[in-house]
């Protein structure tokens, strides 16, 4: 990784030329196209519903308002919400956001920890059947999610876990084959000598894992935890099937339900855009605080 970053600083296209200007212009076009829909989302979210039909050419609406946010967060009365263009259906986006945060946090932490444990055992401990078990585990990478989704739904239903957090996190919280595979790679690369010093100090397998291997693999661990968080935040189909109920509904599912409640002829666009904005804020915060980490992470997981 260090070598990689060092390499970046050499031999860039430094000279000034017309070609360079064109290249920068293209890059800026990419940026604008990437960001403009988000700007439009926020702009709509702060527009009073009645103004949607008017002139939309200015940077900000004529009478910016926060009413759309307060009503989708369930902070206004039903009458106020209706007056502001809502359907009057009860909305409690604050709760859905919290559910999503809990869902992502649970999966990211527990899954990363358990996959690290197993990855460590597969990399550094000797036990009969190790290689066979590992191969079997990695073979799960070959099974596409839709194939296990149907029977998993039946299973969770039979367990009585529909509309519970347990049912929502069950299939992914214990492991994902990719994380085990990925973390094992890093544990394999820890030098023996480092471990031997700890062994002299009397560390057992747990001590070696927790005191030596884990701190040394902080980068890959954060990588897995971060990408897991992002994927969990985006999850839709499984939480839709298992957590459709009001109480455990995630943000993505709530957006879908909100859209359905919105009349087809005249969707509640200002409310939908306010809710959409809220669904972006948490991952945006993640990007702002951990963006560099995340960008580097992607470079070395090579996609998942």
């Amino acid at each position, binding site marked *: 990784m260090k070598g990689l970053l060092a390499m970046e600083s050499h031999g860039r296209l430094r000279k000034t030329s017309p070609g360079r200007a064109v290249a920068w212009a293209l890059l800026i076009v990419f940026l604008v196209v990437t960001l403009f829909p988000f700007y439009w*989302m926020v702009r709509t979210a702060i527009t009073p519903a009645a103004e949607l039909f008017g002139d939309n050419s200015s940077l900000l609406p004529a009478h910016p308002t926060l009413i759309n946010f307060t009503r989708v967060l369930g902070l206004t009365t039903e009458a106020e919400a209706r007056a502001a263009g809502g359907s009057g259906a009860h909305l409690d986006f604050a709760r859905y956001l919290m559910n999503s945060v809990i869902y992502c946090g649970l999966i990211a932490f527990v899954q990363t920890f358990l996959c690290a*444990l197993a990855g460590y055992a597969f990399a550094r401990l000797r*036990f009969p059947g190790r290689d066979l078990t590992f191969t079997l585990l990695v073979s799960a990478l070959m*099974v596409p999610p839709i194939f296990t989704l149907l029977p998993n739904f039946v299973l969770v239903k039979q367990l009585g876990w529909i509309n519970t957090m347990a049912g929502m996190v069950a299939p992914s919280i*214990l492991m994902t084959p990719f994380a085990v595979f990925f973390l094992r790679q890093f544990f394999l690369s820890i030098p023996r000598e480092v471990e031997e010093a700890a062994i002299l100090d009397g560390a057992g397998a747990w001590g070696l894992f927790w005191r030596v291997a884990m701190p040394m693999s902080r980068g890959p661990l954060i990588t897995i935890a971060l990408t897991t968080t992002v994927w969990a935040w985006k999850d839709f189909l499984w939480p839709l099937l298992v957590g459709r109920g009001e109480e455990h509904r995630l943000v993505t599912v709530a*957006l879908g339900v909100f859209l359905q409640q919105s009349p087809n002829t005249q969707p509640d666009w200002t409310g939908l855009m306010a809710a959409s904005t809220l669904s972006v804020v948490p991952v945006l915060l993640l*990007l702002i605080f951990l963006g560099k980490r995340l*960008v580097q992470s*992607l470079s070395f997981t090579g996609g998942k």
Partner: protein
Amino acid sequence: MARVSKQDDRRVAWWFVAPVLVGFAVFYAYPAIRGAWYSLTDYTMLGSPGFVGAKNYTDLVADGQFWSSLLVTAYYVVLNIASQTILALGLAALMHRLTRSVVLRATLLVPWLVPNVTIGLLWMWLLDTNLGLVNHLLHAIGLGPVGFFTDAHWAMPTVAGINTWAYTGYTALLLYAGMLQIPQHLYESAAIDGAGEVRMFARITVPLLRPVLALVLVVSLIGSFQIFDTVAVTTKGGPVSATRVIYFYIYQQAFTYFHMGYAAAAAVFLALILGVFTFLQLRLLRASRSDLA
């Protein structure tokens, strides 16, 4: 040297792998077997599954809607992969030759971070036939309105375009990471020889990027075969069946009509298609790992 005894290793190791093995057994292995079994039954989630042999499979082969959903998926995959790969390659090359700004890269990653449901909503609004900004702009230059989601000809290109918008930045970052592995001196000596940027791109970047490009292509391919969220939010498979992709078809069979056995058979079919690509991916992953390590 007081190496932890092998005896110790054995006992502890099983504790280390136990949770993951439980997860594997209960939520991967067992459902895979159960799914294969369902595909041979008339299971409807009520009562117990009755064995029907290969009936679901023969029905599938005769089911025009199933084939149309595969065709629609193929159309989506071609549209999406082509546009996304070409744009991402261009974007990565621009970044590679111009700047290593992390802020820029992080910004390009934003659409990838956002749930597909949000993205679907966002574009439904931008492309709305009556009030959408895009149709406003089209109107201003004397065109439209275009029913992006309601016109059978436009619906699929629209969905493909939305996902291209969402994933191009992400794909570009993966390709950019691959480009960083290309030895810089190749560009330097090419520049001394008077080669222009286009020539360097064609003669150095693309050929040396080939293993990474292949991997990214296969990963994107597997991903786009499984498109669901965007369709579920924006078009629900319509108009008529213009965007009813295979994943959505399976979902409908299972959870709208409760044809669990039939859906499972269709899932087996999709698994076989994806299996080919996944096998390819694992081989490429191994190959690129030895290259890049």
